[in-house]
């Protein structure tokens, strides 16, 4: 799962969460970092040693939940955007989630936006409670969501009009894609052929993931069940003249 789609399994997610007692006691960091990689800013960031010091830089972070006060310093430091802070009892009905958010524009305090699941699907509306923009670190957005969504919501999306360009090589907008999906083009290959998306200089590197998200939303199918279309040679664009010169020699 994780290797293919970037989405952890339920067991992995459960293992990252503190037990219910600790959750109820107040804000706490949840680190969804499952693969040994040479990375340790989280442990360095925590002023309370709640993230246990690493013996080796490849260690995966381990928490002492009782030491954590949910300050969020680790959230803004983690380059993998793997950490959130959860405050389950923020209000009677809502939990507060502090999320790292790298995109621009940043949302505004009080704004209502889409809360996204790990695959990027909007699953609820969320109110922005706070926006922290630290210098040279990742901004942290606090949002209020229904309590039962704390294991699901992992990103936000500022609602925008459908004129956003998905394929910059061929000027294809979200609205174009949605309209072709509605006409029955239900795979990346079909959409590619009819719209030319993914056929420009970037060879689909920018747009195909966005298109798959649109397909996944429209078809109500997880992204893991979709294919990203046929990949054609050549891997990197080459000048006709260079290929001709090479062909002449061989």
């Amino acid at each position, binding site marked *: 799962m994780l290797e293919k789609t970037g989405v952890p399994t339920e067991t992995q997610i459960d293992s990252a969460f503190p037990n219910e007692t600790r959750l109820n006691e107040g804000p706490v960091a949840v680190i969804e970092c499952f693969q040994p990689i040479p990375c340790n800013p989280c442990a360095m960031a925590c002023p309370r040693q709640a993230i246990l010091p690493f013996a080796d830089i490849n260690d995966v972070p381990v928490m002492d939940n009782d030491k954590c006060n949910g300050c969020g310093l680790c959230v803004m430091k983690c380059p993998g955007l793997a950490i959130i802070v959860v405050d389950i009892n923020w209000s009677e009905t809502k939990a507060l989630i502090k999320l790292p958010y790298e995109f621009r524009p940043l949302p505004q305090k009080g704004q209502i936006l889409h809360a996204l699941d790990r695959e990027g699907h909007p699953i609820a509306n969320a109110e922005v409670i706070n926006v922290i923009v630290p210098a040279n670190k990742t901004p942290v957005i606090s949002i209020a969501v229904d309590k039962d969504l704390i294991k699901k919501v992992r990103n936000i999306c500022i609602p925008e009009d459908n004129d956003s360009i998905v394929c910059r090589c061929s000027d294809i907008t979200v609205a174009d894609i949605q309209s072709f999906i509605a006409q029955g083009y239900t*795979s990346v290959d079909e959409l590619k052929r009819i719209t030319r998306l993914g056929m420009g200089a970037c060879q689909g590197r920018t747009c195909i993931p966005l298109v798959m998200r649109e397909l996944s939303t429209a078809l109500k199918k997880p992204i893991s069940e979709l294919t990203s279309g046929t990949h054609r040679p050549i891997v990197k664009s080459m000048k006709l003249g260079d*290929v001709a010169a090479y062909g002449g020699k061989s």
Partner: protein
Amino acid sequence: MRKTADIVIIGGGISGVTIGYFLLKHGAKNVVLLERDYLTAGATGRCGAGIRQQWGAPLNCRMSQFSCEFFENAQDELDYAHGIEFHQGGYLMLATTENELEQTRKNVALQNSLGIASKMLSPEETKEIVPLLDTKKILAAAYHHKDGHLNPFHTTQAFANAFKRLGGEIYINTNVTGITTTQGKISGVDTEHGHIATTIVVNAAGGYSQAVAALAGVDLPLHSERHNILVTEPVEPMLSAMLMSFSLNFYCQQVPHGSFIMGRTCPDQPNDLRITADSSFLEAMAKTITDVLPSLKNLRILRQWAGLYNMSPDKHPIYDQIPQLPGFYLAAGFSGHGFMMAPATGLSMAELILGLEPTLPWKQLGFNRFQSGELLLESSVV
């Protein structure tokens, strides 16, 4: 999926959708089209979609004249908002050998006698039309201003939409796995999603038509050949006409979106059903095109791919009913020019299946010609 149909068409390429459209237009009912993958998954979605009326046999001139006129009016007739991007920027056929020049002159004379306004151009006149061209190898060119190219995806979709509006049904992702017969006649098709009972099946499976015929135990005199093609990054419009040359072995066009598309015939291609891309094509193509259009040397290649030409013994398609299996029709063997003939294919097959008077000389395109030895000669095929 429905359980019965009057007519089942196998193959969702340009041939399948045009046949479906003309059948319904001429009064057929309950017509179903089955496509293994998605519309245009076969040669149709891989082709250059060059359209020309410059042929060396009267039959092909007639078929392509009809088709070209159809494409000119397709937007209205098929009522397709996006349009099919038919770019009538002209089509140049370059002659570089004495023999080729001779043949080209004969062809132009024939075309003119049939009302096709092609003409011979000197190298200088050719260069006026294509300033990018290096004319040193060129003796002359034949030119027809009404030829050109179009967008195969939108054209197929336009026919498919019109077919559906007239009541036709299209099932994509539906592989035909068997063809059933009763007492020597067609009785239905098996698909991965169930059986459809029908007495008429049309095999329009392009490069796979032999495999589809084999499902009914029929052996066809056809084989498939891999052909490669490439596309470059889009640039400002600089080549309006489509270019081709038999002796130089290439065709090339700039599509409205700005990319150049080009192909050539490579020796030693597998003639099984493989369509993986071949890197030797890339080198030969780059060399050919930078000789003819030297300023393209700085243009970047983005992608290459391949598709199947479905070849017949005389490089003409077969439009016929399988003699030993009534109800089993075939429209295949297009030998690399089935796109431009598609409206003629659709009309001819509809007339053949519905027993109507021929508008076009499709009777010459039956199996008979292989028995009688009256093969159709055509000098202008790649």
